[in-house]
């Protein structure tokens, strides 16, 4: 029904100073941009780290001036990567990408930008908490970056930081100060994420404009809303896991430790269990992958509908799928733990629940396909990336079926097959969603257009190099090559044919990774260039129905200079028979005798 109106209904304008406008801003649009730029920085850093370890994997043991130049004589003496640092790079790369780029960068940007704009709200429910959320995120990125420069190295236990490896600095040097910084950074990050999520939920529930029923919300908002709920329910569990780990490390408790001799020292821990940590971690960890993916899917739904000039097919089924995925994602975490010593019967239960998730995922894919079927596709860069997302979502989703089948997971667990799977869904699909969103809403954020031709170039090179990197990894993995290996020289001892194959594929993968990294340079350039020199945007460049395109190009505090818009229809009236134009914005009242969707 009609949403409550809590803000005053007149936009308030007042002069702001530089600091309150650009730095400690409480305006959701500015905060969105802050999240985006910070997330992009972290993305560039994460990508650089991955190039470093890809150099090692592609050309193991060869001297590389690049490595020596960036990592110095401590970590890459003679240009050969240090074994410990290899693990450190992998760990920080994973952490940055999953949490800082795809959680904060993606949700933080687009939830902040779009929730108020697409719902017709003047701002987030609490601008102050919103600002706090960004600044906590910023501090956590700083801590994580600093941890790269610690003398004993950054955290080295993998992004999943399983104890005891992460708890004992005798086990690996990164588990000293590096790990402490990691935990502190993550604790602050989680607090930031919680503040953000609470804000999103409250805003969606309370600040919708007149006529914006839940069933008229764009799918972007549905996705952000469910994502926020997942975050609120799962991140606290990770926080407690991290705090207990911190206590094990500093206060002599042993929640996760038992019967350990490390570095020749006999410890006296008894009764703790590493499995406890794994349960707590994956209770967040699996919902987390949907926290990453749902916003990307939401963004795609919006962009595909707009640029196919067709309603999204099966709007209600799409909402249903989002809700089903959200719910199921809480009862599948055990599929990461089939081989940890967990009770096999429990493993069987997790097989069942996990494969259930494939059903709503399949529904979403078929609905996308039907949406572009008989469409009138306009190839904006955003649209290209959305189609790329659907392709990679299929490719990555199907391999999940193998991993979810515990009997088959026995051979491929912790191999490159898993690495391939989650990179295709997160490293390609979710990242594509983020790119799509940036191209699509750039005019809304900066009042200018990004260069389309560069966008095309960016998309095609990224799609090809992306698949070029991650597709061959399936074959490396199915050959049984474990992940997180510094090199595969041990294969020389038992199977030379396989060794050759792994080496060949690793070279191929590394070359594509380097090409792909250069392709991202084009995007970064296009982005910053367009902020200052791009062509000025018009109010509704993509001829879209949603409310954000009814605000003026120049940002005003409160979003609409006049009263808030009133909504009369769902957001997907594209190419509706009988209408003159091929789009009907949500603010247009239903014509006589016209039916709502």
């Amino acid at each position, binding site marked *: 029904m009609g949403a409550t109106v809590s803000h005053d209904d007149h936009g308030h304008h007042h002069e702001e100073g530089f600091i309150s406008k650009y730095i400690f801003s409480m305006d959701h649009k500015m905060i969105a941009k802050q999240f985006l730029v910070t997330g992009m920085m972290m993305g560039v850093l994460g990508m650089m780290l991955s190039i470093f370890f890809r150099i090692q994997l592609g050309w193991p043991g060869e001297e590389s*001036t690049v490595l020596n130049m960036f990592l110095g004589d401590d970590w890459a003496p003679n240009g050969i990567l240090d074994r410990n640092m290899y*693990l450190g790079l992998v760990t920080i790369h994973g952490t940055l990408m999953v949490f800082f780029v795809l959680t904060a960068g993606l949700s933080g940007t687009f939830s902040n930008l779009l929730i108020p704009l697409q719902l017709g709200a003047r701002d987030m429910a609490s601008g102050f908490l919103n600002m706090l959320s960004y600044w906590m995120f910023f501090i956590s990125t700083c801590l994580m970056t600093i941890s790269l420069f610690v003398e004993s190295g950054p955290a080295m236990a*993998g992004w999943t930081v399983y104890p005891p490896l992460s708890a004992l600095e005798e*086990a690996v040097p990164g588990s000293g100060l590096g790990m402490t910084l990691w935990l502190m950074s993550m604790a602050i990050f989680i607090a930031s994420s919680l503040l953000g999520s609470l804000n999103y939920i409250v805003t969606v529930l309370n600040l919708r404009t007149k006529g914006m029923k839940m069933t008229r919300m764009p799918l972007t908002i549905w996705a952000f809303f469910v994502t926020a709920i997942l975050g609120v329910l799962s991140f606290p569990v990770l926080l407690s896991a991290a705090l207990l780990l911190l206590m094990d490390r500093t206060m002599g408790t042993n929640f996760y430790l038992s*019967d*350990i*001799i*490390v570095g020749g*020292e*006999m410890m006296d821990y*008894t009764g703790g*269990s*590493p499995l406890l940590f794994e349960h707590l971690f994956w209770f967040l960890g699996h919902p987390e992958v949907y926290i990453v993916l749902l916003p990307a899917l939401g963004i795609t739904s919006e962009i595909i509908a707009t640029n196919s*000039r067709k309603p999204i097919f*099966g709007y209600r*089924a799409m909402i249903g799928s989002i809700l089903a995925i959200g719910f199921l994602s809480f009862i599948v975490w055990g599929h990461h733990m089939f*081989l940890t*010593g967990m009770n*096999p019967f429990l493993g*069987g239960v997790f097989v069942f629940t996990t494969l259930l998730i*494939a*059903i709503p995922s*399949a529904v979403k894919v*078929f609905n*996308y396909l039907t949406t*572009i079927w*008989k*469409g*009138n*596709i*306009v*190839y904006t860069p955003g649209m290209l990336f959305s189609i790329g997302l659907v*392709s990679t979502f*299929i490719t990555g989703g199907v391999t999940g*079926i193998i991993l979810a*089948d*515990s*009997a088959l997971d*026995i051979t491929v667990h*912790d191999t490159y097959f898993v690495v391939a799977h989650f990179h295709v869904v997160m490293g390609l699909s979710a990242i594509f969603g983020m790119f799509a969103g940036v191209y699509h809403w750039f005019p809304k954020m900066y009042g200018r257009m990004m*260069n389309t031709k560069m966008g095309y170039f960016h998309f*095609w090179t990224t799609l090809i190099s992306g698949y070029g990197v991650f*597709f061959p990894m399936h074959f*490396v993995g*199915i050959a*049984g090559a474990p992940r997180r*290996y510094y*090199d*595969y020289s*041990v294969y020389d*001892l*038992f*199977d030379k044919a396989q060794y050759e194959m792994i080496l060949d594929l690793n070279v191929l993968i590394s070359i594509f990774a380097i090409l792909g990294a250069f392709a991202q340079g084009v995007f970064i*350039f296009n982005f910053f260039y367009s902020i200052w*020199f*791009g062509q000025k945007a018009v109010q509704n*460049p993509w001829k879209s129905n949603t409310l954000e395109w009814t605000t003026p190009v120049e940002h005003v505090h409160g979003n609409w200079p006049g009263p808030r818009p009133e909504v009369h229809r769902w957001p*997907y009236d*594209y*190419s509706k028979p009988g209408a003159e134009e091929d789009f009907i914005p949500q603010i247009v009242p239903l014509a006589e005798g016209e039916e709502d969707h």
Partner: protein
Amino acid sequence: MESKFIILIVIVLGIVAISQLARVYELAAKLKGKKEEDISDSDNRMNARMMFAFMILFFGTVIYFYTEYGRGLLPEAASVHGVEQDWLMNLNIFIITTVFFLTNFLLFFFASKYYKRKGSKAYFFPHDNKLELIWTVIPSIVLAVIIILGLKNWNEVTGAPSEDAEKVELYSKQFSWTARYSGEDNVLGDFNYKLVNDDINNPLGVVTRVTMETQIEALKAKIVDEKAKLNSDSLVFADDIEYKMHKKVERLSRVVRRLEEELASYNDSLDIPALDDKIVRGDLHLKVNQEYEFQFRAEDVIHSAYFPHFRAQMNTVPGMKTRFKFTPTITTKEMREKLQDENFNYVLLCNKICGASHSNMYMLVQVDDEATYDAWIAEQPTFKSTVIDELNK
């Protein structure tokens, strides 16, 4: 330093050059009155064709990879359950490959066909319950089949081993594996991590009265040693080191106290299963067609016992016993002949990140025929001869 400087200058100049090009492009577009948001028909057509071209390229590459790398050059399964698992894997790969080709084809085909051009219109088609029902039900049925077959296999693999499964322990630590065979009685002696002591050849902490007594003495000596260092006038330690030494004394004292309690209630009959155990540090030898029940332990951090050729894997966790069973079916010799590779070996790899040399933590596995195996195992010394008799000397 100089090279860094030159690289930096090249990058900066490159960016400036591209900006200028972009600027020219933008100005030219402005003159022609072209706007970024107006995607021209020719751009749409170009991208649509690219979609099709990409699909051909992509599918072609995928097919090439399937033929070239198929099951990734992993040799055929060399265990009983592995053969069934491979069958299931192939079935699943067949299903997902079909889905992959079908849906990706539809996607790229639609994307290349339905692009905007002069006079084209979109078809208004917001929902259709029947269609949606179809693509909810069909995946559900396929998944039901996958789940049922998968769980059947899983239950067999993880079910209880048979009576005559031979028990072997695999012990992991940074960065090596050690095996312990259970000997004639097929019962592994008890263990206690507090008894681990390489000096007396007891790297796995096997429990007997003698090893307990010896360990208590050894630890006490260590404590005395440490205390002496702390109290010595000639040695001066940094504060944090001294703090650590104090902690160590406390810790070891607690360990000794616990061991003494355990010794007090120790029942000597527990010695017996341990005496005929055999600790092996070289290759792991297995008898072909013999079922094995492995018990895994870890000393320091989590590792994972991964036998790719036997399609077997299980994590090893400090403070916990984990298990996995399998029956090898092809001897190393036979496998070498099949692969025509004289140097081929089965292997046990570590497959859980565990520190710097994680990628070098392995143990070669030999699957022998019965005679060879029997001869080999007979040569291995027992725990009694390597440890107990030595200590009693």
